[in-house]
Every structure is written in structure tokens, then in C-alpha cells.
């Protein structure tokens, strides 16, 4: 086969090209020809096709994501916003924190272990590329029905992959989510989050500038893995019989990544790097075009100098390969020798593959012949944008009308029924103890983990002298979002925000992973539009800007999409981690206060799911000002030593929160149903804007006065006491029995 050089392409304008097989539309191919003024070479076509795929170009979602910037609340904390590898937030004392959540859903369905492992590897490189030392990971997960045979295949592999990679990298896993719902059958969601810490002056950006500066590719050799993965994996739907295509799977090498981290931090410390980009989806195509596009000047790359694992790879394949554990740095010529020396110290292969040029073109050569000559912006940033049609689904009204009222769904009434319902919820897979999963993750490594599973948020200390720390929580309730995607996305934010505040940290910023079905379906597109609008509006009110995130579309089997699942991560700061608030009730005699208002709200609730397998009605109402007030009280309560334990209320309501706080602290509670509520609503309603706290008697007055002054309803509902949950006049539930129901559930399903 002759090499398809630029010269050859110019001379053979009529040559047939496989643009359709590469996922391009006719008008997109025409536009490429228009940009170049000729037909693209094979290598150019490969680059455009991967970079213009949904996964890399966000072509369906861009028009909606814009709101995150347009509506972003003014925030002094934001140092780097959307558009870079990850957003960066100022947390004080000269520290900056970067965090981001990303999906690796499709690869994890095909090959659970490697798919999930490389999901962790990818997000960690994003954080590293900002100049930060990665300090923790989290893993929000969604699986199909817990008793479905495919869940048995997928779940253990995904968990082992996340643990296998993260543990070997030496990053503590400080939290995540595990949710089962048959809507995720065939489309499990593997979202991965990483947090990194640096000093302000260490922030690095993905840009190439300064003619003559060198482009260094370092890390693993390039092999034939994941070629086409980006366009095929992330943009094709799967039919019911399984993956429609089986593209090469990428295998991760966490040891290589650990070396890459240490080596990269060392070259940062010696100030050897001008610009840097990790290699993820679309590999070198993405890294070179993004670096060149974001900087000034052009770039020239000698592709044949790329170290290969497989000598038979074609230039197109090298450009598209998604081999893991690689980075690309821009380095001044006089610093190259030292850069290479540090790489050698860490046994990392590093190669100068090109340089920044005067011009404005990205030029790639293969054994001296030019095979790519493009304006880099046209590849990396000016891809197609779609205004996909969307419309409120015809079934939405009927779904919302199907409310779980007392007339339609039988509610427990007697003490015996209520008690059984508490047990049933605590022992249902979504509410049950997750330690079969979380015990496969190292939560101690690095020695700075202050809170991790099963606390409300993960928290790490970032300065050992001053005890400054950050907290992160992720949440997303697909059932709520299905009932009302606008409110559902806001509820996801509110819950994560509440979880961060419950541990005593002040929420600062947001990252999000939007997991949806096919954008070509107007119903799904409406869900997406509503969810982004809701999230952007809520971020504005709560004062927490979106700093970055990820979109995963085509999560559907045939024409059945998953529930719309916006997963929202909130990052907060705490001045002194010694003041963190845990969830466990540990002190006998402390008073239990319920904060917020409780209404009869069961749409999308855990109770409706567990007791009746029902999804209908409206999700809980949301009052964002109330959320903000609640957070202020929780933070002040922690700072001033007024609360010893706090737990936010979400799935399963007060009953589930109390079960978790009692089991964690090893102490029971004596409760009374407050006036004006019935026991069922008191126990199981999922009204938003609530938390339960335990208050030392000596602090009661101060605490209730604070709530009174600020106008937050605080109801004394009981006292920490004994070794059972005792709802006076209704039932007594020994903790031992509760623990029995709550633990071992996941193990029994999968073991």
C-alpha cells in the first residue's frame, strides 16, 4: 500500500475514503474537505473522525453545556474553569485543588476489569496534567438488577479493576456510590473521580507555545489497543445480544502510571515543563491537536519516532491508538536533557517526537513524508455542533401522574409493619452495607484520609501542619431524574452539597458526569437539556460553579435508555480536619435533632422501589435557599463544636439515616414521632434539605438558638441511648437484628 501523503491526496481528489465507517456524516466529511481545500489523507481522516466523535467533540451536548459557563456564579475560588483537563479551585493557604469526574461506561461493560481500571488511570492522568499530585479517587457505580446473572459478571470485575488499578497506584479510595436498577442492565455506569493538590504556582495548562520548543512523548510504548475505540465505543449503541462491535480493549498498567506520576511531579518541581497533556481518548491525535490549538504557533511531529510495542502499526493507527499511561510535554530545548534524565531515573521511556513551529499548522511526518497538514483548531476545538431536536416525552405526564399516594400504594401502619419496613429497606441492595465492595479498596494509603466509606463525604488532609483539608461527595438519583430531569439534576447537586456540609466542609465547586441515552432520541435529548438547565440554575443559586465534567451518551440497549443519570460531585474545604463531623452516634445521652421540614414525599423514593417496585409521581421538592441555610448550620455546628455527629437524609429517609448512624457509632436511639407527622412519613419520606444531628446536652441551647436565629426548623426527635432503635409507641428494633439485615447482602448476591 502506498503511503497516503498530503501530496498524494492532493493529486487523487476522487479516491474513495471510509469516512462513514469511521463514524463521520456526509456533511462532516464535506466540511473536512472544505477546511483542507482537498481530500484529507488517511491520517487526517483518522484524526478528524476520532476528534469529531461525540465522545471527544461533545457535538450533541455542547450547546447545553454552555450554560455552565454562562450561568456560573461569581466565585473567587475558581482558578481554572471549564475547558482544561480539569478545573482548579483555590482552597486557601496557597493551595489549589483540582478534581474531575469522568465516565468509562461502555469499555467496562465489554471488559469489566480493564474497562474500570483504565477509567481510573485516565482520570488520574487528567488531574496530573494540571500540575497536581493526585491524592484520592472515588467511584460512583450503577449496575443492573442485583440478582441478574450479568451483574454477577460485571460487578466483581469492575470493582476488582477499580481496586486493582487504584490500589497499585497508591491512591486512597475515599467514596463513591453503588446503585442497582434494572435500567442499567446492559449499560452499567462506571464513573471515576480523582482529586489532586498543588500550590497555585504549579498549575500547568495544555498548550504548546514558543517555536523551537520540543514535544516529548513519555510513558508506555504505543500499541494497537483501543484503536477506533473512541469513535466506535462511545458513539455506537449496543443491541440486545451484546456489544455490536468488539474493538480492541485497552489493558492498563498501573505500575507504569505510578512511575509516570512520580516522574511528572519531578519534572514539574524542576520547572521543566511549559505545557502538558495526557493521552486519553483519541491518543496522539487529541494530544497534539489540542496542545497546538491551545497555544500559539504550529507543531511538527515525526510520527515514526514514536516508540512502538508493535512495529507493524500504520501511521493512522499510531495516531488513533489509545494505549494507556502516556503523556505529552512541551519542553524548552535547553531543558530536554534534564527532562530525559528524570524519565530515565523512573524507568520511563521518553522521546522527542517533534517541535513547536512558527506557522499555524499541525504537520505530521512519516519517514520524511508529510501525512498531515491541518489547522489544529479545526481538529481540536472547532468540531461540529448539533442542535439536536428535543421534546418532552409523551409519557412524562402519565409518569408524573402516577403518584405513590396512600390510596394507590399500601403503606405500613402498625408498629410491626413499620419495623419490618425499616429492616426491609436497610437490607435492600441499594441501602445495604457496601463493605464487600469498599473493603477491596485501599482507603489508608498516603496517610491523609480523614473520612472515607461509609461517611457522608470523603475527606483528606492536604497540609499536615495546618490541618487544612478538602471533602468530596458524589450523588445522582436516576429515579428522581426520570420523574423530572430538571429537579432530579438539582437534587443530585443538593445531596452532594449537603453531604459535604454534613462533614463540616464548606462547598466550593462542582464537577459532573452526565450519563444519558442516545442524543438522537428527542426524549433523551429533552432529559439532557432539562438536566443541564437544572444543574446550571442550581449551581448559580448555591454559588458553586461547575469546573468541569464529562458527558456519556448512548447508554442504551436498543431503543431503551437508562434513567437519565446526572452524577454530581461537590468539593468543599475545611480549615481544620480535626473538626470533621462523622455520621456515627457514639455518645450515650446526646440529643438527636432533625433539621429541615418533612412532608409526605414518596415519588421516586427508596420505599416505593423496595416495597412496591414503583416509580411514578414527582421527586421531592427542592428549596435551594433552604439547602444553603442547612449547610451553614452544619458547618457552624462543626466549627463551634455544637454537633458531634451529622448525617444527611436521602434515600430511605430518616429511618435509613438513623440505621446508618446507629450502626456506625454502635449506639441506639430512643425516638418519638413529632407532632403533626405520622410515623410512616416521619420515618421514610425523602423530603430534601434535611439532616439529622446529635448534639451534646451542654450545647443544646446554643445549637437551638443558632437554628432559631437563622430560621432553620430543628426538631428534637430523640436521644442516643441503648442498643436498639426504639420508636416510642410503635416498635423496638435491636441493633444486632438491624446489623444482620444490613450486612452481608451484597456478598450473598455475588459471593
Amino acid at each position, binding site marked *: 500500500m502506498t503511503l497516503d501523503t498530503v501530496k498524494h491526496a492532493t493529486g487523487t481528489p476522487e479516491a474513495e475514503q471510509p469516512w462513514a465507517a469511521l463514524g463521520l456524516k456526509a456533511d462532516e466529511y464535506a466540511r473536512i474537505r472544505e477546511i483542507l481545500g482537498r481530500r484529507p489523507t488517511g491520517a487526517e481522516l483518522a484524526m478528524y473522525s476520532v476528534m469529531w466523535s461525540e465522545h471527544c467533540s461533545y457535538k450533541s451536548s455542547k450547546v447545553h453545556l454552555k450554560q455552565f459557563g454562562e450561568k456560573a456564579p461569581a466565585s473567587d475560588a475558581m482558578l481554572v474553569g471549564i475547558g482544561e483537563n480539569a478545573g482548579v479551585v483555590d482552597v486557601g493557604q496557597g493551595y489549589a485543588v483540582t478534581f474531575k469526574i469522568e465516565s468509562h461506561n461502555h469499555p467496562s461493560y*465489554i*471488559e469489566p476489569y480493564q474497562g474500570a481500571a483504565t477509567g481510573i488511570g485516565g482520570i488520574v492522568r487528567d488531574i496530573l496534567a494540571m500540575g497536581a499530585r493526585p491524592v484520592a479517587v472515588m467511584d460512583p457505580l450503577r449496575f443492573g438488577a442485583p440478582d441478574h446473572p450479568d451483574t454477577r459478571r460485571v460487578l466483581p470485575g469492575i470493582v476488582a479493576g477499580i481496586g486493582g488499578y487504584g490500589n497499585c497506584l497508591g491512591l486512597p479510595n475515599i467514596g463513591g456510590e453503588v446503585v442497582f436498577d434494572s435500567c442499567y442492565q446492559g449499560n452499567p455506569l462506571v464513573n471515576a473521580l480523582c482529586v489532586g493538590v498543588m500550590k497555585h504556582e504549579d498549575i500547568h495548562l495544555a498548550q504548546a507555545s514558543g517555536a523551537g520548543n520540543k514535544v516529548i512523548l513519555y510513558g*508506555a510504548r504505543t500499541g494497537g489497543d483501543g484503536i477506533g475505540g473512541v469513535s466506535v465505543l462511545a458513539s455506537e449503541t449496543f443491541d440486545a445480544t451484546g456489544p455490536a462491535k468488539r474493538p*480492541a*480493549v485497552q*489493558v492498563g*498498567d498501573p*505500575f507504569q502510571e505510578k512511575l509516570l506520576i512520580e516522574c511528572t511531579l519531578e519534572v514539574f518541581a524542576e520547572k521543566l515543563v511549559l505545557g502538558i497533556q495526557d493521552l486519553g481518548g483519541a491518543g496522539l491525535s487529541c494530544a497534539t491537536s489540542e496542545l497546538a490549538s491551545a497555544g500559539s504557533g504550529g507543531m511538527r511531529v515525526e510520527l515514526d519516532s514514536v516508540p512502538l*510495542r508493535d512495529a507493524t502499526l500504520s501511521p493512522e493507527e499510531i495516531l488513533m491508538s489509545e494505549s*494507556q499511561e502516556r503523556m505529552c510535554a512541551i519542553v524548552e530545548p535547553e531543558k530536554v536533557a534534564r527532562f530525559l534524565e528524570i524519565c530515565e531515573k523512573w524507568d520511563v521511556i521518553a522521546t522527542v517526537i517533534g517541535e513547536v513551529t512558527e506557522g499555524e499548522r499541525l504537520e505530521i511526518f512519516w519517514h520524511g513524508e508529510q501525512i498531515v497538514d491541518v489547522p489544529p483548531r479545526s481538529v481540536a476545538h472547532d468540531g461540529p455542533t448539533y442542535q439536536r431536536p428535543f421534546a418532552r416525552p409523551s409519557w412524562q405526564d402519565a409518569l408524573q401522574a402516577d403518584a405513590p399516594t396512600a390510596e394507590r400504594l399500601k403503606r405500613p401502619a402498625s408498629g410491626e409493619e413499620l419495623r419490618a419496613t425499616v429492616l426491609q429497606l436497610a437490607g435492600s441492595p441499594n441501602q445495604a452495607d457496601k463493605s464487600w465492595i469498599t473493603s477491596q479498596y485501599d482507603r489508608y494509603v498516603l496517610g491523609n484520609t480523614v473520612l472515607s466509606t461509609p461517611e457522608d463525604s470523603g475527606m483528606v488532609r492536604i497540609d499536615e501542619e495546618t490541618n487544612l483539608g478538602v471533602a468530596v461527595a458524589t450523588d445522582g438519583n436516576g429515579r428522581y431524574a426520570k420523574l423530572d430531569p430538571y429537579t432530579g439534576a438539582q437534587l443530585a447537586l443538593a445531596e452532594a452539597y449537603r453531604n459535604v456540609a454534613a462533614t463540616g466542609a464548606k462547598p466550593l465547586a462542582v464537577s459532573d458526569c452526565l450519563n444519558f441515552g442516545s442524543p438522537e432520541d428527542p426524549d433523551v435529548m429533552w432529559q439532557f437539556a432539562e438536566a443541564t438547565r437544572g444543574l446550571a440554575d442550581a449551581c448559580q443559586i448555591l454559588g458553586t460553579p461547575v469546573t468541569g465534567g464529562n458527558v456519556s451518551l448512548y447508554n442504551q440497549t436498543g431503543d431503551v435508555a437508562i434513567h437519565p443519570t446526572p452524577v454530581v460531585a461537590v468539593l468543599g474545604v475545611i480549615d481544620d480536619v480535626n473538626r470533621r463531623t462523622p455520621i456515627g452516634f457514639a455518645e450515650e445521652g446526646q440529643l438527636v435533632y432533625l433539621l429541615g421540614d418533612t412532608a409526605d414525599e414518596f415519588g421516586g423514593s427508596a420505599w416505593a422501589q423496595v416495597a412496591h417496585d414503583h416509580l411514578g409521581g414527582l421527586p421531592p421538592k427542592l428549596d435551594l435557599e433552604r439547602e444553603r441555610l442547612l449547610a451553614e448550620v452544619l458547618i457552624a455546628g462543626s466549627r463551634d463544636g455544637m454537633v458531634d455527629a451529622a448525617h444527611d437524609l436521602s434515600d430511605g429517609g430518616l429511618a435509613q439515616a438513623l440505621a446508618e448512624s446507629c450502626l456506625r457509632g454502635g449506639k441506639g436511639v430512643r425516638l418519638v414521632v413529632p407532632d403533626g407527622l405520622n410515623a410512616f412519613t416521619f420515618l421514610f419520606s425523602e423530603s430534601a434539605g434535611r439532616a439529622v444531628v446529635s448534639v451534646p446536652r451542654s450545647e443544646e441551647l446554643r445549637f437551638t438558638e443558632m437554628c432559631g436565629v437563622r430560621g432553620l426548623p430543628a426538631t428534637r426527635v430523640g436521644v442516643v441511648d441503648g442498643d436498639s432503635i426504639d420508636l416510642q409507641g410503635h416498635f423496638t428494633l435491636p441493633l444486632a437484628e438491624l446489623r444482620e439485615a444490613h450486612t452481608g447482602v451484597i456478598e450473598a448476591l455475588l459471593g
Partner: protein
Amino acid sequence: MARVVVDVMLKPEILDPQGQAVQRALPRLGFTGIADVRQGKRFELELEGPVDEAALARIREAAETFLANTVIEDFTVRVEQP
């Protein structure tokens, strides 16, 4: 009793970090002249009955569906001569 061996190796195009680690270490330990190392798994199955075509077919099926992950691995089945 008869023994059937199932060898499972990563497909050639798939990265083999284990084999690479060994390959990188060998020269440092003074073992040179080894161009490539791949590491895989070996299963030794002891059959209760005779190793006839039917038994081998079943083992091949077990290898295909369970012992190997054919997304990334190849396997071979063979009878070990005692």
C-alpha cells in the same frame, strides 16, 4: 485419572504488563538474549472419566466461556501425556 491442560495467554496485540515486567528485569539479573516474554495462566484439570472427544469438547467450552476471557485472551486445550 487423566490430566487436561488449558493454557491461557493474552492475545498478541494486547499489552502484557506482567510479561514486560519480567522481560525488563531479566537483563538486570544477568539473563540476556531474551527478546520477548509473555505471561499467561496454566490450568491443570484432572478429569474423573476418560478423556474422549466429548470431554475435550466440554473443556473447550469451559475454557471459552469461563477460564479465558476471549475479549483479550486466547487459549489452547491439550491432553497431558502421563
